[in-house]
């Protein structure tokens, strides 16, 4: 019974916490609310630079969240909403930069690095294998000499 009371209490608290996070915005569907959350999570606060506008308490982030909500209400698409804020504050506010001529190197760099690394490793491996086949570490004569020397040593001792 005591557990039940505690559980009820915690559940009530959970409701309070949720209400605070959702600010004062009303959404008609769960999907819309999720869309709003996703949008504010991927927009960056220009003032407090390493936070997204969902986490930031800066007044400018509040203004930006208001704008996201307002545009959603007006039926704007995600791209339009992000574009609207980029027009005002610059590309900085996007955590994910768009793929275009200027950012293609940035986007392609991980792939380039991996492919480059694989090529270098493969090159080194192939070269050393080829060298082994072409010129073994010791020629036949050298091997014979080595055997000879070892045999001499055995005799001496």
């Amino acid at each position, binding site marked *: 019974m005591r557990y039940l009371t505690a559980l009820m209490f915690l559940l009530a608290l959970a409701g309070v916490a949720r209400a605070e996070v959702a600010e004062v915005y009303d959404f008609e569907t769960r999907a819309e609310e999720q869309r709003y959350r996703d949008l504010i999570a991927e927009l960056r606060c*220009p003032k407090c*630079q390493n936070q997204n506008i969902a986490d930031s308490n800066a007044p400018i982030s509040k203004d930006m969240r208001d704008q996201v909500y307002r545009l959603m209400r007006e039926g704007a698409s995600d791209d339009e909403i992000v574009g609207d804020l980029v027009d*005002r*504050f610059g590309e*900085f506010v996007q955590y994910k930069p768009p793929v275009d001529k200027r950012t293609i190197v940035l986007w392609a760099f991980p792939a380039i690095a991996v492919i480059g690394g694989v090529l270098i490793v493969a090159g080194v491996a192939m070269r050393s294998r080829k060298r082994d086949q072409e010129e073994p570490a010791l020629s036949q004569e050298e091997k014979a000499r080595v055997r000879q020397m070892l045999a001499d040593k055995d005799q001496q001792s």
Partner: protein
Amino acid sequence: MKRVLLFLPLVFALAVGVFLAAGIGKDPTKLESARIGKPVPDFSLQSLNDPEQLLDASLLRGEVSLLNVWAEWCPACWDEHGYLMQLANEKGVRIIGLNYKDQRETAFRFLGRLGNPYQQIIFDPQGSLGFDLGVYGAPETFVIDAEGVVQYRHVGVVNEQVWEEILLPVINKARGKS
């Protein structure tokens, strides 16, 4: 041929070093404005001095001007105000004020203490024009050319160094065009 290849890592490290060194000393909190080259967005806001008088974007046309975003609550605005007074009084620069997310009484108190360098002050208590201009922290100072197009945005305090090295060249270029 092999010898040359040995220097490759050194060359690579130097290139990366030069690239990274270029970023040192840059202030990452100062962002280039996305509004450069675009006209000042339309607005219709009260004048701070006269609630009856509505101001709009035509205020910023006809002459090169500075648009200074300020508020009483902004500490750096107190710091730069003395220099703005100097610019207005001694150099005759046309400065338009944008009173950002402030209240009339506090704004008047600020001007009463430090003086008024502005030819006209736009009263923007909601910060709506500020939002459209991409203002993310006062003080910010925009250079607007005679056609009402944003030429430059400076974030932070305007002082003699900023004026001489950054704002004046932009203003001269904007003046030369018209």
